[in-house]
C-alpha cells in the first residue's frame, strides 16, 4: 500500500514538474548566469564579464529614462485606478436610492454595469492598443477624440496626443487605467458585499452620511483587498510593453518620451542581439518589482479587522 502510494505520487508529479523545471525554473536561474556574460546568442561564444553589464546599465541614460517612465506610471496608475474602482464599487453597492426595507442599496442594473466595466479585462491588450491608437489619431477632423472635442466646441483641447512629447506617456497611462478599472470594480464589489449590513445600518442610525460611511467603514474593512490590488496594479504599471510597442510613435517615442523597461529589454535582446546586457535588465526588473512589492506590503500594513 505504502509502496503504491509513492509510485502514484511520483507518477502524478513527474510530468508537471519536468515541464515546469525546463521552461520556468531553468530560465530563471540562467537569467542570472547570462546577465554576467557578453553573449550574442551563438552557441559557445559567451564570455564571463562579471558585473560589467550592470555597470553599463547603471551608466545608461536610455535605461534610466525608461525606468523613470515606469516609476511615474507606478506612482500614478495604481492610485487612480484603485480610487476609481473603489468609487464605482461603492456607487454600485451603496449609492442607490433608499428603498423601503433597505438601509443601503445598490443602484439599479449593477450587474449590467459590472458586465460592461469588466469588458476590457477579457479582450487582448493588442486589440485595446489598436482601438486607442485610433481614438488618439492626431488629425483634427479624422481623429476620434479630436473630432469629438471639435463637435462640442472644445477645439482648444485638440491635440496630437501620442505625437505630443509631454502628453504621450499620460495618454498611454490613461489606457491602462481605462482597461483595469472594471477589474477592481468587480473585486471591490465582491468584498463590499461581504461586509455585514448591520454595520452600515448602525452607522446610518448614528447619523453618518455616505461619505463618512465610506471612509470610516468601507475603506478600513477593505484594506487587505486594496493592498493586494495595489501590488497587482503596480506590477501591471511596471510592464506596459504591448501598449507602448503598438501605440507609441516609433516604439517608445516621440523622442523616447514613452520608453519603458520591458521595451528596452525586448529591443536590446531581440533587435540588437545583446543577450547578456538584456538579461542584466531583466535582473534589474526583478529587483524593482520585488522592492516595490515588499515596500507596499510593509508600509501599507494595518491591523487586520475581523468581521
Amino acid at each position, binding site marked *: 500500500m505504502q509502496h503504491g*502510494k509513492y509510485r502514484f*505520487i511520483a507518477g*502524478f*508529479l513527474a*510530468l508537471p*514538474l519536468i*515541464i515546469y523545471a*525546463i521552461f*520556468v*525554473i*531553468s530560465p*530563471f536561474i540562467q*537569467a542570472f548566469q547570462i546577465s554576467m556574460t557578453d553573449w550574442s546568442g551563438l552557441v559557445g561564444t559567451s564570455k564571463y564579464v562579471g558585473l560589467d553589464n550592470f555597470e553599463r546599465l547603471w551608466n545608461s541614460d536610455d535605461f534610466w529614462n525608461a525606468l523613470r517612465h515606469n516609476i511615474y506610471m507606478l506612482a500614478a496608475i495604481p492610485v487612480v485606478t484603485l480610487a*476609481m474602482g473603489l*468609487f*464605482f464599487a461603492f*456607487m454600485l*453597492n451603496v449609492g*442607490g436610492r433608499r*428603498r423601503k*426595507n*433597505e*438601509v443601503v442599496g445598490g*443602484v439599479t*442594473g*449593477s450587474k449590467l*454595469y459590472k458586465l*460592461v*466595466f469588466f*469588458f*476590457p*479585462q*477579457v*479582450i*487582448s491588450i*493588442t*486589440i485595446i492598443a489598436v*482601438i*486607442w*491608437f*485610433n*481614438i488618439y489619431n492626431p488629425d483634427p477632423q*479624422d*481623429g*476620434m477624440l479630436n473630432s469629438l472635442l471639435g463637435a462640442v466646441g472644445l477645439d482648444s483641447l485638440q491635440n496630437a496626443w501620442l505625437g505630443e512629447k509631454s502628453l504621450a506617456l499620460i495618454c498611454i497611462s490613461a489606457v491602462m487605467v481605462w482597461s483595469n478599472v472594471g*477589474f477592481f470594480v468587480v473585486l471591490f464589489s*465582491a468584498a463590499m*458585499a461581504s461586509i455585514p*449590513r448591520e454595520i452600515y445600518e448602525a452607522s*446610518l442610525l448614528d447619523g453618518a452620511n455616505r461619505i463618512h460611511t465610506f471612509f470610516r467603514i468601507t475603506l478600513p474593512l477593505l484594506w*487587505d483587498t486594496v493592498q493586494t490590488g495595489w501590488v*497587482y496594479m503596480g506590477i501591471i504599471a511596471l*510592464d506596459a*510593453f*504591448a501598449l507602448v*510597442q*503598438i501605440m507609441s510613435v516609433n516604439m517608445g517615442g516621440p523622442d523616447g518620451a514613452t520608453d519603458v523597461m520591458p521595451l528596452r529589454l525586448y529591443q536590446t535582446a531581440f533587435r540588437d542581439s545583446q543577450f547578456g546586457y538584456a*538579461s542584466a535588465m531583466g535582473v534589474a*526588473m526583478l529587483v524593482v518589482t520585488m522592492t516595490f*512589492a515588499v515596500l507596499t506590503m510593509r508600509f501599507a500594513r494595518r491591523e487586520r479587522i475581523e468581521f
Partner: protein
Amino acid sequence: MTIKTDETPKQGVVPGAGSPNSPKGPGSGRGGKGGKDGGVLNVFSHGMLVVWALMVGVPLLWVLWSSFKTSNGILTDPWGLPTSLHWENWSNAWNKANMGQYFINTVIIVGGSVIGTMVLGSMAAYVLARFTFPGNRFIYYLFVAGMSFPVFMLVIPLFFVMRDFPTGSLLTTYQGMILVYIAYSLPFTVFFMTAFFRTLPASVAEAAMIDGASHTRTFFQVMLPMAKPGLISIGIFNFLGQWNQYLLPMVLNQEEKDYVLTQGLAMIALQQGYENDWGALMAGMMIAMLPVLVVYFIFQRQVQAGLTAGAMK
C-alpha cells in the same frame, strides 16, 4: 489572504430583490431628509456610472460597427455608422490578412495547452493537497514562486532553451508553444486547485479506496468530477490568458505563417500605420474577440470571479 472561488460575488445588493430578512429599515425613520439625500446621490452615482459605461462600451461597439465600413470611411469619418454593410471586410480579414490561418493556429495552441494545463495542473495539485510526503511543501512553494517571476526576465533564457532543445528546435512549433503555455500557467493553476482540493471532503475518496479503486481511478472518476466548479473557473482563467497571450508568442513564435491572432493583429496595426486596410483590421479584431465574448457572456459570473481570484494570490 482569501481565495475567491466562483461562489463569491454574492450579489449581496441585487437591487429590487428586496431583503425580506431585514426588519423595517431604520432609513424610513429618518424621514424626508434621508430620502432626499439618497435621491441626489442616486442621480449623481447613476450619472457617473453611465458616463464610464459609455467610455468603456462605445470604443468596443465602435470596433463592431467599423468592421462593416470601408477603410476610407473609418479614417475620414470615424464616428459615422456604416452606410452599407461591407461584409467583404470579414472575408478579407479571414483570407487576405491571414486571420483564418492565425485563428486556426490559436485554436490548436490554446486548445492543446488549456487541456494540458488542466490535466497536469490538477494532477499535481491533487497530490500536493491530499498526500503527505517528504518534499511536499518544497514542491508546492516552487510552483507558487513562479507567480512572482517577471516573464520579461525569463524570455531571453527561454528563447535559447527552446532553440537548443535536445530533440530539435521548439521555436515556432505547436508542441513547443503548447509546452510553454502549460509551464507558465502551472503556477496559478496548481495554487488555485490545491486550495480547491483541500476543501473537498476526504470521506468520499476513502470510500472509493475501500471499494477497491486505485489512487489513479479515485482521482479521475471521483475527485475530478467533484472539483468541477474549480476546474471551470481555472479553465476559463487559463483560456482567456492564453488566448490573449502576446509576449510569449512574440518571442518564441516568429514565423509569420505560424502567428497567433494577437501577433497577426499587432503586425497589421504596426506595419502600415494609417494606410492600412482598416476595415479588415476591425473585422480581424472582431474575429479574434468573438470566442472570448461567447465565453464571457455565457460564464460571466465565473469569469469575473475567476479573474479576480488572480489578484488574491
